[in-house]
C-alpha cells in the first residue's frame, strides 16, 4: 500500500531578504533587547496601525513563476519589431547599438546612486564625458547632468531665461507639441506668461511679423524648435535670434540631437540656451520610458548659476596629473539651499546620460554625419514615394524636413483613423494622427522615418497606403 506523503509546511524565507531567516532575526532581536519587531514601531499610534494584512494579489514566490506571470502580461503588447512603425511625435525608433545596452546594464552603473567623487569616480567621469560629447555635438561649453525629459528641459530653460533677464514672458510658436505646451503652462505658471506666435500655414515657419509685434521689453525668451514638432525645419533661426537679442531677450532652441551630424548647431544661428531629449541617442523607446532632457549654454557665470541641475566638473587631485570630478557651483542647487536654490534637483536620468555618451562615442564624427544623411535620405525617399499616391499631399509644409513630415489625406475621402486602422492589417503603425492636436492642418498625420527603415520598408508603407486609399 502506498503511504500518503504530505509535504512539510514551509516558513517563507525571502531570497531578497537575508534576515528573514527566523533564527537570525531572533538573535538580532535578542542583541537589541527587544522581544518582537513590533516594539520598533512604538511611535506609530495604535489607531494608525494597519490591522491584518494588505489586500494584495497572491505573490509568485518563485522566480520561475513570477517570470511566467509578467511575461504573460507583456506578451499582449505588439512591439515595433513585430510591426513596422512610423510613429514619432516625441519618441523615436532609432537603432540602439548593443554596446549601449551592455554598458547601461553593467550592474555597477545600474545600481549606483549618489556616492562621492571617490567611491563613484567612474560615474562622475562617465557623466562628465557625456556632457563633453554633447558639448561637441551642440558646440556649447556647458551641458547639464540630464533632467527628466525634453518637457522638463524646455520648461526649465524658460525659467532660467526668466531669472537671467528678470522678465516674465516667453514667446513660442503654435507649432510646438501640445504636451510641451501643457508642461510649460504648468511649470512656468508662477513666473512666466506664455504668448503663442502664429506660423505660416504653407511653410510652417514662425511668423516673423507676429514675433515683431509681440516681442517687448517684457520678453524673457523666444523659444522655437529645429526641427519642429511638426517635422519642418525652421529657416529663420538667425532672424529670430537677432530679434530676441535686439530686445534683450534670450533665444532658446529645442533640437533633436541625432540631427546634428548634418544640421547646424543652433548656437551658430544665435541660440543662447539649447535643449532637447536624449532618447534618440541609444535609448530604447520603452513606451515613453526612455526620455532624458539636456540643457546647454555658453560658459558664462550668469547662465551657469541659473541651472537647477547637477553640473559635474573636472578638477585636479593631490596627485599631479590625476583627474578628479565634483559638483560645479553646488551652492546654487536645492540640495545645498533648499527653497533658496534654483528650482529643484533630485534623481533624474543619469543612466540615460551615460548611455547617450556611449552612443556618441560609438558613432564618432563620421557616424553622426552618416546617420544624419541616412535619416534625411530615407525620410525624403518616403515623402517622394507617398506623395505619388493620388489625393495624398506630403510634405504638408514647403520647407525642408529631417526625419518627420506631415502627410495630408484631405483629398482621399478617408480619415487618418480609418487609414491607420487599414495599415494595422498590414502590420504597420501609421503616423501620429494630428486631427485633434492641429485641426487647422486638416486630415493629417505626422510620419517618422529613421535609419532603421529600409527602402523595402518604405515601399511597403507606400504600397499599403495605396491599397488602403484606392
Amino acid at each position, binding site marked *: 500500500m502506498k503511504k500518503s506523503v504530505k509535504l512539510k509546511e514551509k516558513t517563507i524565507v525571502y531570497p531578497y531578504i537575508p534576515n528573514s531567516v527566523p533564527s537570525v532575526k531572533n538573535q538580532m532581536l535578542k542583541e537589541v533587547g527587544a522581544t518582537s519587531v513590533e516594539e520598533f514601531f512604538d511611535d506609530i499610534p495604535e489607531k494608525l496601525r494597519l490591522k491584518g494584512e494588505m489586500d494584495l494579489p497572491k505573490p509568485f514566490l518563485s522566480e520561475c513563476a513570477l517570470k511566467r506571470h509578467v511575461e504573460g502580461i507583456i506578451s499582449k503588447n505588439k512591439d515595433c519589431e513585430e510591426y513596422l512603425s512610423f510613429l514619432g511625435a516625441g519618441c523615436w*525608433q532609432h537603432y540602439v547599438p548593443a554596446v549601449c545596452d551592455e554598458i547601461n546594464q553593467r550592474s555597477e552603473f545600474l545600481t549606483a546612486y549618489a556616492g562621492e567623487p571617490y567611491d563613484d569616480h567612474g560615474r562622475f567621469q562617465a557623466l562628465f564625458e557625456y556632457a563633453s560629447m554633447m558639448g561637441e555635438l551642440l558646440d556649447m561649453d556647458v551641458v547639464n547632468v540630464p533632467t527628466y525629459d525634453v518637457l522638463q528641459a524646455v520648461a526649465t530653460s524658460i525659467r532660467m531665461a526668466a531669472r537671467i533677464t528678470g522678465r516674465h514672458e516667453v514667446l513660442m510658436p503654435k507649432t510646438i507639441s501640445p504636451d510641451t505646451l501643457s508642461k510649460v503652462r*504648468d511649470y512656468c505658471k508662477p513666473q512666466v506668461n506664455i504668448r503663442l506666435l502664429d506660423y505660416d500655414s504653407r511653410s510652417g515657419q514662425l511668423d516673423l511679423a507676429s514675433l515683431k509685434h509681440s516681442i517687448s521689453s517684457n520678453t524673457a525668451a523666444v523659444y522655437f524648435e529645429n526641427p519642429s514638432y511638426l517635422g519642418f525645419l525652421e529657416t529663420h533661426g538667425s532672424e529670430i535670434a537677432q530679434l530676441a537679442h535686439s530686445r534683450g531677450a534670450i533665444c532658446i532652441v529645442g533640437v533633436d540631437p541625432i540631427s546634428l551630424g548634418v*544640421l547646424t548647431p543652433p548656437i551658430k544661428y544665435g541660440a543662447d540656451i539649447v535643449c532637447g531629449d536624449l532618447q534618440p541617442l541609444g535609448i530604447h523607446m520603452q513606451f515613453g520610458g526612455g526620455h532624458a532632457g539636456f540643457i546647454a549654454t555658453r560658459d558664462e557665470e550668469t547662465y551657469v548659476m541659473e541651472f537647477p541641475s547637477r553640473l559635474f566638473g573636472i578638477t585636479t*587631485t593631490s596627485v599631479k596629473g590625476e583627474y578628479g570630478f565634483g559638483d560645479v557651483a553646488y551652492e546654487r542647487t536645492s540640495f545645498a539651499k533648499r527653497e533658496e536654490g534654483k528650482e529643484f534637483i533630485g534623481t533624474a536620468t543619469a543612466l540615460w546620460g551615460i548611455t547617450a555618451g556611449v552612443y556618441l562615442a560609438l558613432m564618432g564624427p563620421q557616424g553622426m554625419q552618416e546617420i544624419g544623411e541616412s535619416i534625411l535620405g530615407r525620410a525624403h525617399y518616403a515623402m517622394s514615394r507617398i506623395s505619388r499616391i493620388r489625393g495624398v499631399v506630403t510634405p504638408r509644409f514647403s520647407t525642408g524636413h529631417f526625419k518627420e513630415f506631415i502627410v495630408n489625406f484631405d483629398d482621399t475621402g478617408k480619415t487618418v483613423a480609418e487609414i491607420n486602422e487599414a495599415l494595422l492589417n498590414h502590420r504597420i*503603425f501609421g503616423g501620429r494622427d494630428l486631427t485633434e492636436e492641429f485641426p487647422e492642418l486638416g486630415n493629417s498625420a505626422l510620419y517618422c522615418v529613421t535609419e532603421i527603415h529600409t527602402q523595402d520598408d518604405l515601399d511597403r508603407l507606400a504600397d499599403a497606403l495605396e491599397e488602403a486609399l484606392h
Partner: protein
Amino acid sequence: MNNITKERYANGKPRLRRFHQAKWDEPIIFEMSCEGERGILVPDLEPAIERTAEDAISTLPEGLRRNQPPRLPEISQPQLVRHYTRLSQETLGVDVNIDIGQGTCTMKYSPKVNELLARMPKMAELHPLEPEEAVQGILEIFYKFEQILREISGMERFSLQPGAGSQAIYANASIIRAYHEQRGEAEQRDEIITTIFSHPSNAACAKTAGFKVITLYPDADGYPDLVALKAAVSESTAGLMITNPEDTGIFNPRIEEFIKVVHDAGGLCAYDQANANGILGMTRAKEAGFDLCHFNLHKTFSTPHGCGGPGSGAIGVTKTLAPFLPTPVVEFDGHAYHLNYDCPKSIGKIRSFYGVAPAILKAYAWVMSLGAHGLREVARTAVLNNNYLLKRVLEIPGVSAPYAKGKRRIEQVRYSWEELAERTGIHSEEIGLRVADFGLHYWTSHHPWVVPEPSTLEPTESFSKADIDEYVNVLRHIAHEVANNPDQVKTAPHNSTIHRIDPAALDNPAEWAVTWRAYQKKIHEDSE
C-alpha cells in the same frame, strides 16, 4: 608572507576587508581618440535612397547644413567597451558594496529577473503612441500597479507619470495650487509648510510651484513641533508637505494632529513617502488623513537607482483631488485598458507620455514576488536591521544618535560625530573619506546640518547581519584610528580610485569646466 586571515571574512564573521578600488587611471575619452577609428557603422544607403539623400542635403535650407563635423572622439569598439567597463568598475553600485552608507536613499537589491523582463522587446520596443489595442499588456501593468499602490497607501487614485521623487513632489505642489485656484483661494493661500528633516525637495518644489515656504524645526526631542505648526498655520496656508518617518528615522506620532491642524486652517497635506520602506503594510497615508502622497519606485520598490535615474515617482491622491492628476490616467472598462485624457481639471503634463514604464514594470514585478506578507517582511526586517545597526553604532565611542532618547527608530538614523570631532578635530566628512577605503559609501546629510557632524545610515532589508557587522567594524576601526593614528584619516582616501580632490576650481567661474572643451580652453594650459 603576511597572514590575511584577520582581514578575511571567515566563519560567518566579517573582518576588516583589505579593499582596494579599481584604479585604471583612465584617460578622458577624447584622449583616446585615434583619427579614422570607428565604433559602429551605419547601414549603407540603397542606391535610390542615396540619390534622395544627396538631393536632400544639397537642398537643405541655407545656414542649416553643418559645416564642421562635431569633434567627437574616434574610437574602435573594443577600446570603447573597455573604457566604459573600467569606469563602471570605478563605481560602487549596490551590487558591489554593502550600501548602508547612503541613508535616505533606500539602497536595496534590484532583482535581476525584473531587469530582464523590462529589457524584453515587448517592453523596450514599445512606442507610446501605438493604438491602445497594441499596448494592452503594459496598460494592464500600469492599472494593476495602481491598484497595488492604492492598497499600500489607502489613496483613491494614482498617476505614475512623474519621472522620480522630486518631480512627484513638484506634481503634488502643483495639484495643491490647482485645488486652491479652483476654489478661488490661490492668491490667499500662498504658503507651504514643511519640516527641516523632510527632503529639501519639499521646500524647493513648493517654491518652484510659486509658494512661500515655512520650515519648522524639531522640538527638543527631535519630533516635528506641533506648537510651531499651530503658530505657522493661517488663512495663507496652502498645505503641508512632509516626510514621515523623517530623515532622522523618527516617526511623527502626532501626525494625525498635524494634519488636523492644517485641514482646519483650510490647507492640504502631502506625504513624501521617500521613507516608506520601513512602514510598508504597517501604516498608511489614508488613515493619517493625508490628501496626497508619493512613492519613489527606485527606492522603496527596488527599480534600481541607475547612477541617479531613471527613477519613477508615483503620486496618489484622495477622491477629491483625483480630477487634478496629470493626464492621461489609465482606466479599465472590464474588457480593455484605456488612456483617459478627458480630465478638464488636470494639471496637464508633468512628464512625457505616461511615466518611466520600465521602472513601473519592475516595481510591479517586485511587489508580485513578495505579496502582502512579503512587503511587511521588507518593512519589519529593514526596521530590525536599522535598530540593530543603531545599537551597534552607539557602542562606538564618539558617536551619538541625537533626539528621541531611548526610543526606537524606523528605517534610518541620523547619527552625530560631534563628540569625536570636538575631541579630535576630525569631522564627519573626513570619516566619510576614510570609509571609502573599505569599499563602502558614507553620507553626511542634506544641508543645513541641524544635527552637527552628521552621518545618515539606512540598512534596508537587503543587508544581512554580517553585512551590518562589517559596516560597524569599519566605523569602529576608523574611530580608533582617529584617536591613535589621525593622519591616516586626515589623508584618506588611500585605497580609492583617486586622491583628495581640489574643490576650489569647481566654484571658480574662471576655472570650472563642465565639459572637456571648456577644460581645454581654461585649465589645460596651466597644468602642463
